[in-house]
């Protein structure tokens, strides 16, 4: 979304225009949902968190700064809600595979992303992303997939820009290692 259009939408949303909310909802909903699905690896949780994210936007519409970056704001709220959900459920990442029908799980077939992947590369990237740890996954999703700048990502994650750069570098290395492992042993399914 162009910055000028974004600023105008923020101003209109601050004054309570429902048309402004509709435009923001339409523009950002798929991105936020995809981010939450890849983060949580559960579609039902992603839907709940998506709803809460936009309800928070509405609740705080009047308090938004005029120069708010909607992408950074929405991804920050979505990410924080996901963190709260994880804390509330006190799930260690390893246990998620045991307790929930998440993916990738052996013998459960392809994930929705894998099933609709347009190419082999995309399918393998989805699988490799899903296998990464949460910290690596979220920084890659924000920077490489959603296209946030490192400084926007830093504000979303609550880190210094330098820390984000280091985390991103490590995440890329681990993704490359996962892709290499997938290339070397294509028969081995994750889980």
């Amino acid at each position, binding site marked *: 979304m162009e910055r000028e259009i974004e600023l105008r939408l923020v101003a209109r949303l601050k004054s*309570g225009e*429902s048309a402004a*909310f*509709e435009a923001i*909802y339409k523009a950002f*909903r*798929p*991105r936020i*949902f*995809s981010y939450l*699905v890849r983060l949580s690896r559960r579609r039902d949780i*992603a*839907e709940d968190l*998506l*709803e809460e994210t*936009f*309800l928070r*936007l*509405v*609740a705080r*519409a*009047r308090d938004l700064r005029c120069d708010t970056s909607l992408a950074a704001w929405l991804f920050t709220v979505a990410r924080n809600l996901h963190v709260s959900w994880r804390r509330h459920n006190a799930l260690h990442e390893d246990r998620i595979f045991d307790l929930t029908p998440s993916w990738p799980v052996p013998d459960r077939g392809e994930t*929705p*992303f894998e099933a*609709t*992947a*347009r190419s*082999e*590369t*995309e399918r*393998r*990237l*989805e699988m490799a*992303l899903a296998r990464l740890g949460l910290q690596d996954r979220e920084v*890659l999703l924000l920077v*490489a*997939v959603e*296209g946030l700048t490192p400084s926007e990502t830093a504000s979303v994650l609550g880190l210094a820009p330098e820390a984000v750069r280091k985390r991103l570098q490590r995440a*890329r290395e681990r*993704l*490359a290692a996962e*892709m*290499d492992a997938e*290339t070397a042993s294509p028969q081995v399914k994750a889980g």
Partner: protein
Amino acid sequence: MTTGQWRDEFGEGLKNLQTCDAGLETVERIRGRCLAALEAQWQRHYWRTSFAVTWRRWLEPAVTFTLSALYLVNAVHSSFALLR
């Protein structure tokens, strides 16, 4: 495909990963709830603002005037009582 070829495609591949959307029912439900919340919020803001404007423009001067008048009447009455 070689490892090198994989690496060259990472950046583009990640950028081009599919965006998925919630189901239509969920999309509409969230939309409805948010619009209703936005409307309710602005109703509350409108009533608070309207009351504040009405108070400042009419009620406050009227209350001030009435209280002042009562004070004056009371003062005059007390003065006459003293004189008697």
